[in-house]
């Protein structure tokens, strides 16, 4: 095969060969396109290697035959070949895509261009025909179309530049209820509720997509039967190579279920908010209750205690030993009741405090708590905490917690032994842990859960006094301060109570 000459004018300079010969040689080298010439009646008068490769006929077999042999029976029935030649001779050019038949009877998807050939006087001398095999492209387009058609969860369809439906997939049919026949050619504003249509919303959608390339939104749309669904819609402008708007693609999803779910969630949220408001109100009532408890309940207590004291002081001579014992019982009972009321108020207060947490120096809080403890047996309390440790806490609450832990640790010592209590702290992963270790009686594992409950006591009052609220306050306060509390203990082996709080920034 001769080397393909470079197609550069002036062709006449190429080895003195006539230009018409150069072109025929060029055509002869093209193997990807079938390029051949028909006479005015449609009989084949030339044949290139591309034509042979594509259609299977050799030049000898096909020259002189009518080009209608390349058409399918269906096209022949419509006299498509005759129509195409007539069209080409009338307007100069005819282009088409469609099925064509090879020599062996197999089909291929062809792009066909038929060009009218005229002589110098304008008389028809024949047609040039260029055929390309687009089977591959056709296949991928078919796959693509089948893919889109097969999608039922999304309505995928196209609109022309003015908004009329030009294609319709099965998802569109499922979601909107129209068959392709019913909707193709109709304007897409049919999918919008009346009020949106009157407000010009469909036009706004197309306008936005045209201007910005893209429109996305959610809203109510209308099915064929008039029912509404909540749609997520994406509209994309389609442009040809020159940038001219050719139409729009539109993808619509039915999100009614999600919308209803979201609405329900919103309703629940609103209800929750209402409940919270109601709770805030009942908290306020509780606050008023606690206030009146602290104020009114303690007044008779003061009277009982005060007059018991007065009785002992002023009437001691008139009382015998058992009378004095009874007075002492009254005094002790009123003191216990007073402690109970005070602890309960504190427990309630800890649950309600909503003051913001601050960075509190742990050692300062421990020192304040020990100051409140007052006198302790010499050498019984050791504090081993760095001065530069800060925790996120409510200052008074923290002091109360430490006070409770220390007084507990000092209280529950073994009979006839001096308490040894050590407060130490460690820091890990942004959390500060305060340990309060004692050498006391310890707590059996089965009791270690219970001790944190209100009014929970493990001992009779005569052995260890107390209200049974102290640890409940510790737990509640630690929870309120976004921390935690716990105990490690063995009976007879002492206990280590701990609280953990988020580390605070140094001040």
């Amino acid at each position, binding site marked *: 095969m001769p080397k393909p000459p470079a197609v550069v004018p002036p062709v006449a300079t190429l080895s003195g060969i006539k230009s018409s010969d150069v072109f025929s040689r060029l055509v002869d080298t093209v193997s990807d396109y079938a390029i051949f010439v028909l006479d005015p009646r449609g009989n084949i008068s030339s044949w290139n290697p591309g034509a042979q490769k594509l259609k299977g006929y050799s030049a000898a077999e096909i020259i002189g035959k009518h080009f209608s042999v390349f058409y399918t029976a269906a096209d022949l029935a419509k006299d498509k070949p005759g129509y195409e030649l007539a069209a080409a001779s009338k307007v100069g050019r005819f282009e088409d895509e469609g099925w064509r038949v090879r020599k062996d009877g197999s089909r291929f998807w062809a792009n066909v261009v038929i060009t009218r050939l005229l002589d110098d006087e304008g008389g028809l001398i024949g047609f040039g025909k260029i055929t390309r095999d687009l089977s591959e492209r056709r296949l991928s387009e078919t796959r693509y179309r089948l893919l889109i058609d097969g999608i039922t969860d999304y309505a995928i369809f196209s609109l022309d530049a003015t908004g009329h439906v030009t294609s319709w997939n099965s998802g569109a049919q499922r979601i909107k209820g129209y068959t392709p026949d019913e909707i193709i050619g109709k304007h897409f504003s049919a999918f919008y509720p009346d009020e949106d249509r009157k407000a010009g919303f469909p036009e706004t959608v197309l306008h936005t997509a045209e201007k910005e390339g893209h429109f996305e939104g959610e809203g109510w749309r209308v099915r064929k039967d008039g029912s509404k669904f909540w749609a997520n819609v994406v509209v994309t402008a389609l442009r040809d190579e020159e940038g001219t708007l050719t139409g729009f693609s539109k993808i619509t999803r039915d999100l009614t279920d999600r919308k209803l779910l979201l609405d329900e969630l919103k309703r629940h949220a609103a209800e929750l908010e209402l409940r919270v408001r109601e709770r805030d109100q009942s908290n306020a009532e509780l606050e008023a209750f606690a*206030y009146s408890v*602290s*104020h009114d309940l*303690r*007044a*008779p*207590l*003061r*009277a009982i*205690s*005060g*007059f*018991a*004291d*007065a009785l002992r*002081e002023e009437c001691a001579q008139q009382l015998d030993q058992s009378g004095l014992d009874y007075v002492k019982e009254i*005094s002790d009972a*009123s*003191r216990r009741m*007073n402690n109970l009321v005070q602890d309960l*108020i504190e427990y309630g207060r800890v649950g309600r405090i909503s003051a913001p947490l601050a960075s509190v120096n742990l050692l300062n809080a421990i020192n304040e708590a020990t100051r409140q403890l007052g006198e302790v047996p010499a050498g019984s309390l050791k504090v081993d905490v760095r001065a530069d440790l800060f925790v996120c806490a409510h200052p008074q609450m923290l002091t109360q917690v430490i006070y409770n832990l220390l007084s507990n640790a000092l209280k529950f010592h073994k009979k006839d032994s001096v308490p040894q209590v050590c407060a130490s702290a460690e820091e890990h992963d942004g959390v500060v842990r305060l340990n309060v270790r004692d050498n006391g009686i310890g707590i059996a594992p089965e009791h270690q859960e219970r001790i944190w409950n209100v009014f929970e006591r493990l001992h009779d009052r005569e052995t260890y006094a107390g209200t049974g609220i102290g640890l409940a306050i510790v737990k509640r306060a630690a929870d309120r301060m976004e921390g935690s509390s716990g105990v490690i203990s063995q009976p007879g082996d002492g206990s280590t109570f701990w609280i953990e709080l988020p580390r605070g920034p140094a001040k």
Partner: protein
Amino acid sequence: MPLTPVLLVEDDPTDFRLIQRAFNKLSNGFQMFRLTNGDEAVEYLAGDGPYENRGAYPMPAILLLDLKLPRRSGFEVLEWLRRQVSGLNRLPVIILTSSRHSTDINRAYDLGANSYLVKPDTGAQLEELAAQFRTYWLRMNEFPSLRPEIAR
């Protein structure tokens, strides 16, 4: 030496009796007047009605005020008192109440209380309070004038 008049506003008769008993244990030097509600307190201080008779109802040198009172609360009495411009507004006021609520404590000081005491739980503590009160407020403390004199 004339007795220093102390005005106590306390509605609870039991509390009053206990307070009275504690104060009576001290050697005298003061005279205690008792009222049982907030309206009376305002009338007394303003010298309205029977209280015009300052011979029988002398102007107190110091006011011991409960917070939870019938008709007009201790807060309202305090508020009224500090609003006066006659010099009466300078009267030292000591809150004596059973509330330990920080909101009450802060509000009392905001309104101009000079001290805030919580009623003790036992007779012994109450006697201690009475003794300290007398030492500090009646012996050490200097009293202001309750007449419209300009501070120089």
